[in-house]
């Protein structure tokens, strides 16, 4: 190392002595660091700073951590306060006592950014706590005593911190990290995917925690906006701004719908929802007043210019209709500063066009250049004459390019500063092309997606969330549910079952007859009715005696309230159904089949809308929902044949099938909705170790249903069900049938008593 001038002032020499660190490189930077530190720190602060640096020096990770500490601390303190000097050196020390030494450097590097973003001591302390918490939870040990294996996710997490801090609040970061640390503690590879924002659920949780105005929260409002103010409607398809770093997508629309960003932060004093409205107003104005023109005869410059004038034209018309849009558009439009673009060395065409565009929105633009003012005036002249069309804008655009052309326009060094108007769409709808492209026609286009014969009656999977009681959050799109038609067997089998239970069926029929005259509703205040309504009659007498006019409507009558119940029966078809319970000669599956047949017969006679489905699961990736009877189907051979083929297998993951059944039941027009679940055990699946997880998820699903006015009732054949079933379905929401062989008799009776 060459000798550089490292002369220190006597004061600095004292400081140097206090810093116990022998790295040679330190001498080269010490004077500079101290100069900055002296400007920022108090006397005590400097002492802490030097002892902190000594501590960082002692961890034995080379000079770099010390350098970062010395260089960044003053900045960090400016954003927070001096207590951080000690805290951070102590953190680095604690860090070095874990197996995660490699992450010290990225951790230190992330602190200045975090301090800038979070801007307060408490918040920065939160941030450090969150990182340490994550580290502790994901650092593994071999024998359970001493931590030996470094955290797999931590380096990935620290790589992402800049981005996370930019997009999420500290609470959001905490929730996102908690989710990953909880769910992937024992999966090193998945943990890495999660913390590097690669996996789907990582992105979904991230999305949930983002700040700003989320599209999903406001979709209805935007639809209403489109309907109410623009009498237009189309699908909205959100795209994410979060992950496509290379090229930021812009809003656009085509035959498949309107693409808008999934989130807008407040910007330039305009709220996120109004930014959405600005985008939609712009697009709606294009749709109302615009048309496509042939693109082939224009040069790229001409096209850019035409687009700018056309955007301004439709916005002009929109502002005529809704004057309030002007202030929103104006605030969102970037303000290109005149003369800020160097037109000798770089292409300023976009800059000039943006100035025109801004000048057209804001009459007080204050631009001096004569060409720009001339075209702004020409534009207004055309617009004031009345309905100007796109062709006027084409003329204007072409003539602007012709008159303002500069040699530098075609330079590769294009100035984009303040030229991107982010609420405007990309104008792809404006152009139509005579030739689709230069390529030869390819053969690939014709090839159509060939359907797999196997999957003909299989629907694409539906994804349902699952409740994680540990973190009190939903795991988004966690379960994949496949709905299929149940394959068919022999309907005769069911007819035989019904014949076997003939006497029972007859008894049930008698009970049904009793059910028929249902719920009487009293109609009061009748002048003529079947009974005297004593309350009203007494009131009338009092009125009469006290000299007032009595109310003559002192009778009441009754009216039948029609029965209006939609029912869904969900049958657990897990492997345990094959068991033959003690004292029976039939398996639970056979008994269930008999019970379901009798119930179906009963409900069919009552004419209640009724559906049957079975379910079983083989991990969260494959939950099967087997359609046996739909609401529009009758109790016929088709349904009977499906029921007779009912087979048992796999496990019982209950939440997703319940949610899926609910979405059918929800659409039934009936007053009362009843979901019956027939199961023989607790919710469980082979990919879940925590036995409470699926129980809690099922409980949550039942709660969701009751908020949708669906009443859930479980019929359990598990004798030990009392331990958990009340937690899931509520005190009155279940029946445990101890004598399984009685099931065929019990089930229809139960149904009748439930709906009486």
């Amino acid at each position, binding site marked *: 190392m060459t000798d550089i001038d490292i002369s220190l002032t006597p004061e600095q020499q004292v400081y140097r002595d206090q810093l116990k660190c022998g790295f040679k490189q330190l001498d080269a930077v010490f004077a500079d660091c101290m100069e900055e530190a002296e400007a920022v720190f108090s006397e005590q602060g400097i002492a802490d700073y030097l002892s902190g640096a000594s501590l960082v020096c002692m961890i034995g990770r080379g000079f770099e951590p010390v350098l970062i500490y010395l260089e960044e601390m003053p900045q960090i303190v400016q954003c927070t306060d001096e207590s951080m000097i000690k805290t951070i050196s102590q953190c680095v020390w604690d860090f070095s006592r874990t197996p995660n030494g490699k992450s010290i450097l990225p951790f230190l590097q992330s602190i200045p950014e975090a301090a800038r973003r979070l801007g307060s001591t408490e918040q920065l302390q939160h941030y450090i706590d969150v990182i340490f918490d994550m580290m502790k939870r994901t650092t593994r040990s071999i024998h359970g005593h001493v931590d030996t294996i470094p955290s797999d996710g931590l380096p990935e997490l620290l790589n992402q911190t800049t981005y996370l801090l930019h997009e999420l609040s500290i609470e959001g970061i905490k929730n996102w990290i908690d989710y990953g640390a909880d769910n992937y503690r024992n999966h090193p590879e998945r943990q890495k995917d999660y913390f590097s924002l690669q996996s789907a659920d990582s992105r979904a949780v991230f999305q949930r925690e983002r700040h700003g105005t989320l599209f999903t929260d406001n979709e209805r*409002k935007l*639809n*209403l906006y489109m*309907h*109410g*103010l623009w009498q237009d409607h189309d699908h909205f398809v959100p795209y994410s701004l979060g992950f496509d770093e290379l090229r930021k997508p812009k809003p656009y629309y085509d035959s498949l719908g309107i693409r808008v960003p999934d989130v807008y932060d407040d910007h330039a004093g305009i709220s996120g929802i109004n930014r959405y*409205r600005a985008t939609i107003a712009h697009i709606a104005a294009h749709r109302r007043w615009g048309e496509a023109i042939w693109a082939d005869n224009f040069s790229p410059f001409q096209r850019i210019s035409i687009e700018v004038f056309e955007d301004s034209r439709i916005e002009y018309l929109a502002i005529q209709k809704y*004057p*309030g849009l002007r202030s929103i558009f104006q605030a969102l439009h970037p303000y290109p500063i005149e003369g800020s673009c160097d037109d000798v060395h770089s292409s300023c065409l976009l800059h000039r066009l943006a100035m025109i565009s801004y000048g057209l929105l804001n009459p007080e633009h204050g631009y001096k250049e004569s060409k720009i003012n001339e075209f702004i005036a020409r534009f207004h002249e055309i617009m004031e004459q009345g309905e100007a069309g796109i062709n006027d804008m084409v003329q204007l655009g072409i003539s602007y390019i012709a008159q303002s052309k500069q040699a530098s326009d075609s330079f590769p060094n294009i100035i984009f500063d303040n030229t991107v108007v982010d609420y405007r769409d990309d104008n792809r709808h404006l152009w139509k092309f005579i030739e689709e492209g230069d390529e030869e026609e390819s053969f690939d286009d014709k090839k159509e997606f060939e359907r797999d014969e196997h999957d003909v009656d299989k629907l694409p999977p539906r994804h349902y969330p699952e409740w994680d009681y540990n973190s009190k959050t939903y795991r988004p799109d966690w379960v994949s549910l496949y709905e299929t038609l149940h394959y068919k067997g022999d309907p005769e089998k069911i007819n035989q079952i019904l014949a076997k239970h003939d006497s029972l069926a007859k008894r049930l029929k008698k009970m049904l007859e009793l059910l028929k005259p249902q719920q009487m509703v009293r109609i009061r205040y009748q002048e003529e009715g079947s009974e005297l309504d004593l309350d009203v009659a007494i009131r009338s007498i009092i009125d009469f005696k006290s000299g007032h006019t009595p109310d*003559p409507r002192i009778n009441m009558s009754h009216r039948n309230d029609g029965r209006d119940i939609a029912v869904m029966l969900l049958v657990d078809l897990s492997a345990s159904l094959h068991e033959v319970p003690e004292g029976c000669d039939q398996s639970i599956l056979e008994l269930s089949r008999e019970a379901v047949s009798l119930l179906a017969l009963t409900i069919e006679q009552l004419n209640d809308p009724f559906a049957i489905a079975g379910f079983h699961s083989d991990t969260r990736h494959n939950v099967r929902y087997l359609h046996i009877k739909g609401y529009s189907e009758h109790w016929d051979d088709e349904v009977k044949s499906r029921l007779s083929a009912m087979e048992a297998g796999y496990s019982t993951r209950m939440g997703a099938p319940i949610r899926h059944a609910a979405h059918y039941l929800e659409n039934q027009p009936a007053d009362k909705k009843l979901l019956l679940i027939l199961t023989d055990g607790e919710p469980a699946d082979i990919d879940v170790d925590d036995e409470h997880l699926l129980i809690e998820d099922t409980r949550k699903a039942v709660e969701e249903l009751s908020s949708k006015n669906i009443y859930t009732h479980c019929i359990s054949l598990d004798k030990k069900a009392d331990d958990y079933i009340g937690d899931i379905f509520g005190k009155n929401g279940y029946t445990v049938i101890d004598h399984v062989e009685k099931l065929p008799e019990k089930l229809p009776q139960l149904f009748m008593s439930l709906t009486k």
Partner: protein
Amino acid sequence: MSDQDIKQYQISEEPYYESQEDEVALYEAAYEARLPVMIKGPTGCGKSRFIEHMAWKLGKPLITVACNEDMTASDLVGRYLLDANGTRWVDGPLTTAARIGAICYLDEVVEARQDTTVVIHPLTDHRRNLPLDKKGEMIEAHTDFQLVISYNPGYQSLMKDLKQSTKQRFSALEFDYPSASVETSIVMKEAGTSEDIAQKLVKIAVTARNLKGHGLDEGISTRLLVYAANLMNKGIEAKAACRMALVRPITDDTDIRDTLDHAIDSIFA
């Protein structure tokens, strides 16, 4: 019935009414032929005002009955009341109208129960009489008597509809919100406001009417526009007046409320 009594049903001043199409001529012809008339249309579009105007124009007394669920047949035809001397028969509004030759206007008739509505049947066909079975009297309708009912097919539930047998006794006029220019001049005249403000109010109303069926049962009525203009006349700032008179009354749905508030901000910029 004495002249004094009839007089209270006469309309002395001309109610302001801006005709939308040819409904005035149609109504006059229906009255000439003494056909019962049914007026359909959304809330606040001017149904009741139209009838008042026509009664004034024809110089006939007008008896209006606001119908409701608890109304019984005797609320229409009359009943015996008890008094110190025993019982006394009191005519209901329908009977009174038939006796004195008034126009009887049953407002929002579907609100009344169907068995109540049936009592108007004999008055609405060739018989033109009203049997009072409790009193044992048969009233022949006065030659000037006419029955008019109004209802709003929009917001009531499926359960509340008129019976076919009732519907088919009436000739019908269908009202809608007036066209933008007519509505503007109505708001100007009724509230004495400027054309610019009236136009903006109508624009807001159009926005809300587009949302009907998307969570709104009814759009903003002309009546509410007049309310908003009245509030502004009292010195309330335009946006606040619109929120109070146009948006808050018609919806509890926050999404719709926000959209309409935004429309107000955009229009009254």
